[in-house]
């Protein structure tokens, strides 16, 4: 295990350096995942190694669960059934619709487990296992395990998949025309000619609605950015925090922060998956129906 000193240094590029020995071998915690091997041109980063491990762990759990499925649940099946029920109820609270919950739930649970296992694997005290590579400041120690979600590539991949899947789900739920009109509100512009005589304010409202649609389109890209950077920022900050605590007082001081990071890992996985649920629910909701409903309510009042 590397013995950190209090001579840590935070460089301009956001690298936290904990010198392993008297200035020769350094342990750099970089903003990006470091390659530990190459397959042709393809770099295998330490975050990918963790992700592979996460995939294997989840697959093993799934296989064991499948093999032990019984009519009368016992052991691991009891735990998963309780978790499934609880998670489905939580989904219902977000979607307010059991049908949507049942459709989105598998994806949301997969996202949750994948992120959770990745987050927690990064906390394993196996930082001493790795390779020594030539870094920016001389020979640097690169650990094999780095939380998969502490690499922006992983979080971007998850965020893109979530946003794209939400839009596909929206198209399947309310149709391609209504989904298209959410972003490029042609219908609102067309409404100018239809409703102008009845309601002259449409001249102002329709362009605003069209512009709001465009904002929604930009919002989809913002969703990818916010999802990916939130998760990456939190997990990477946790790793920096642990490294800093190790540098201040090795072994003892990081322990409470490891518990904190376990909690943060759980919360972040939960936030990501709940946001995925929210995006799916929004994508499946029909704005027109909602507006019509509001109009009816107003008329009724």
């Amino acid at each position, binding site marked *: 295990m590397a013995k950190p000193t209090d001579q840590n240094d935070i460089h301009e*590029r*956001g690298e936290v350096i904990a010198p392993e020995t008297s200035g020769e071998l350094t342990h750099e915690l970089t*903003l*990006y*995942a470091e390659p530990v091997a190459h397959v042709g041109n*393809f*770099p295998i*980063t330490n975050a*990918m190694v963790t*992700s*592979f491990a*996460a*995939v294997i762990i*989840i*697959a093993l*759990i*799934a*296989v064991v*669960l*499948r093999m032990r*499925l019984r*009519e009368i649940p016992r052991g691991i*099946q009891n735990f*998963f*059934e309780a978790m*499934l*029920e609880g998670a489905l109820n939580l989904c219902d609270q977000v979607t307010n619709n059991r049908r949507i919950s049942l459709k989105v*739930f*598998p*994806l949301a*649970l*997969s*996202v949750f*487990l*994948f992120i959770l296992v990745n987050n927690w694997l990064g906390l394993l005290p196996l930082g001493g296992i790795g390779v020594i590579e030539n870094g920016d400041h001389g020979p640097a120690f690169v650990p094999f395990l780095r939380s*998969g979600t502490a*690499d*922006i*590539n*992983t979080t*971007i*991949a*998850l965020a*893109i*998949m979530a946003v794209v899947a939400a839009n596909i789900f929206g198209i399947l739920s309310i149709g391609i025309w209504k989904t298209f009109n959410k972003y490029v509100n042609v219908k609102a512009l067309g409404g100018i000619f239809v409703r102008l005589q009845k309601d002259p304010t449409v001249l102002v409202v329709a362009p605003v609605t069209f512009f709001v649609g465009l904002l929604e389109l930009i919002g989809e890209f913002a969703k990818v950015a916010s999802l990916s950077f939130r998760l990456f920022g939190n997990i990477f900050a946790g790793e920096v925090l642990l490294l800093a605590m190790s540098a201040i007082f090795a072994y003892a001081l990081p322990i409470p922060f490891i518990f904190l990071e376990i909690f943060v890992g759980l919360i972040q996985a939960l936030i990501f998956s709940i946001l995925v649920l929210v995006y799916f629910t929004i994508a499946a909701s029909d704005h027109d129906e909602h507006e019509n409903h509001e109009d009816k309510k107003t008329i009724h009042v």
Partner: protein
Amino acid sequence: MESIISTFHIDWKIIVAQAINFAIVFGVLYFLALKPLQKLMEERSERIARGVDDAKRNAALLESSEKEYQEALTKARAEAQAIFQEGKNEAETKRAEILEKTHLEVEVMIANGKKTLEDEKVKIVEEAKNEIATLAIEATKKILIADADQIEKIK
């Protein structure tokens, strides 16, 4: 944008690789764990719901059967009571009839006995009379013979 990509080492190849990783997790979880588990839970829920319905139906059935049983029991008791009462009445009537008949028979028998006794008595008295008469005749005869002998002897 360029600086963000270079600072964070954003690499589309790694993004694709991580997306594939997640797709594997989703596939494995969905097909090996979630789908069978949900199916099993749904089947169990249906079975439990069916069981509860059956139990409710059985309870209702049991209640109605209990009611029917009680009604049948009450009816049977009433019928049994009626039959018993009828039987008892019949038995009473029969008993009275038999007693009456027996009384009559006994009376007839007593009357017959008395008559037989009377007849026997008359017969015995008659016979006794006959005997006495016979004896008297014989005695008279013997006396007369003896008297005749004595007269002869005296002669």
